């Protein structure tokens, strides 16, 4: 296991390095920088644009800016927002707990809906329940997240007035959870179905083990690999903030912060947030791979 970990962990480095370069370059290709945005708003004259660029270090060449940025990043300095002059770490400190809160709640909703539906649909193939769960999962996947969000808003906040339209965790968590559980149901269902056909399951039934026990002790543990991957990808995305849902429900997390920063050309914030999202994604998947290695010896070789 250790050798597998030693080989797998360094693989994240080139990914992170390339991602940091990509972000940096993309932002500098975007026409117009912070000085232009300020100028359009009438806040600065043309001659002070040059001074702003000098202050922000934007007058250096892109490679120099990049090296400077990475140097600061390694020492934990994410820079300051061009817009509010607050340290990016402070903004991150406000937004990240919100995103984690939403992510964890969404995950709980997804598991609560997805696991029972997926397991039962897989175990009782061809039953009415199986068909209903499949149709439901298909709908959950194909209706776009923000559409579910708007409909939920319309129903629960406007018509029934059970919940406030913004500021409450319930609706965004529900919407994200429903979205993820669609994939969860499909993955679990198809893996459990194929696992039920395995020889050892027939043996277990033949020796008189109760159906439910065969399902919970034998079939389920062996059907979880793909599910863990799917959940890992989902969690990695959630921790990076969900741009759309956060903006539908005005949830002040990482995604919302990033969108505003892109609109304002607030480079330090965008760069830092994209790195946060990439790191979250890469490390959650690293963890998933290591968990595999822990309980499936074949992965290690």
């Amino acid at each position, binding site marked *: 296991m250790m050798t597998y970990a030693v080989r797998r962990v360094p693989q994240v480095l*080139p*990914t992170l390095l*390339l*991602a940091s370069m*990509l972000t940096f370059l*993309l*932002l500098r*290709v*975007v*026409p117009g920088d912070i000085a232009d945005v300020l100028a359009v708003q009438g806040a600065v004259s043309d001659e002070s644009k040059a001074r702003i660029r000098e202050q922000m270090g934007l007058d250096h060449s892109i490679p120099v800016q990049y090296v400077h940025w990475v140097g600061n990043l390694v020492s934990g300095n994410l820079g300051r927002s061009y817009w509010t002059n607050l340290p990016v770490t402070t903004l991150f400190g406000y937004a990240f707990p919100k995103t984690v809160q939403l992510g964890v709640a969404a995950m709980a909703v997804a598991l609560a809906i997805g696991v029972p539906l997926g397991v039962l649909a897989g175990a009782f193939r061809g039953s009415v329940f199986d068909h209903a769960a499949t149709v439901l999962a*298909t*709908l959950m*996947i*194909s*209706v*776009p*997240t*923000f*559409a579910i969000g*708007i*409909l939920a*808003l*319309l129903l629960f906040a*406007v018509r029934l007035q059970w919940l406030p339209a913004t500021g409450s965790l319930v609706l965004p968590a529900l919407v994200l959870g429903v979205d993820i559980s669609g994939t969860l149901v499909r993955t679990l269902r*198809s*893996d459990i179905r*194929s*696992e039920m056909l*395995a*020889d050892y399951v027939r043996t277990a039934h033949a020796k008189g083990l109760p159906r439910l026990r065969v399902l919970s002790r034998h079939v389920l543990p*062996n*059907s979880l*690999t*793909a599910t863990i991957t799917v959940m890992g990808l989902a969690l*990695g*995305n959630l921790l*990076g903030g969900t*741009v*759309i849902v956060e*903006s*539908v429900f005005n949830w002040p997390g990482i995604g919302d912060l*990033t*969108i505003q920063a*892109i609109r304002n050309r607030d480079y330090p914030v*965008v760069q830092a947030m*994209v790195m946060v*999202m*990439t790191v979250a*994604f*890469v490390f959650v*998947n690293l963890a998933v791979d290591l968990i595999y290695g822990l309980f*499936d010896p074949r992965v290690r070789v």
Partner: protein
Amino acid sequence: MATIAMRRPAAAAARPKRGAGPRWPRSPQFWAGSAIVAIATAAALLAPLLAPYDPLVQDTYARYAGPSAQHLLGLDELGRDVLSRLLHGARITLRTGITSIAIAMPAGALLGAWAGFRRGWLDAAIMRVLDVQLAYPGILLALVLIVTLGASQRSVIIALAIGYVPYFARIIRGAVMREASLDYVLAAEALGQRRWMMLLRHIGPNVAGLLVVHGSFAVSGAMVAESSLSFLGLGVSPSDPSWGRMLSEGTQAVYIAPHVAVIPIAALSLVILGWFLIGEGSREWLDPRRG
């Protein structure tokens, strides 16, 4: 996966060969999906004939008017006919989704086939770059690209096409690597066939089915992405009534006139569902053991 050892022989036995299995997909999913997509396509093509009004003409005295005999689906926030906008919007939404995948699919498939067949350092390099894109928040890449290129239908298509290249590259690479290790390919190689000929003649047809399945899934995904970008205000230009834009504008008034948002949501979800069902149905057809 835990079941690889068990699935392998079954996979080889059930592999669809030409002449085996039904010529057309039998699954109701496939036909339901095709019907939805066909109707939407027809509506899009015939929009100028079918639309009762000009999608851009405003009747400011009747803003947010509900459905009536003159305006079957009501009027929007500027008093424009929702039905006419829906029909014209189908052109933009469908064209964006289909065109971006029509670009991404061949590019990704070629890249993946090349990487999977050649292996070695080239494969490793391509896969590392694709890994980055997988880890990179997809919507952000699209957002930054669109801000760079300027918000227009062309920018959205380019951003979505780039975003979907790794999707196809991964799938095709995996499939080519699997096929290339099967006995019939090894036999053909032993008989002295050239490798690229083998790729084309033997592996190609078996991999093509995957493109049908995942092409349909990708079109549905691209349509979701297009509407998400429009929703964030970074999609096609304001004069094009794409469904995503209609929805985004309708959402602002969702409290006063829900129909303005709900109608495009319904249309969009239905067509996305249609593409998804085509993918599902053709997967069962091409690969019976998943049915």
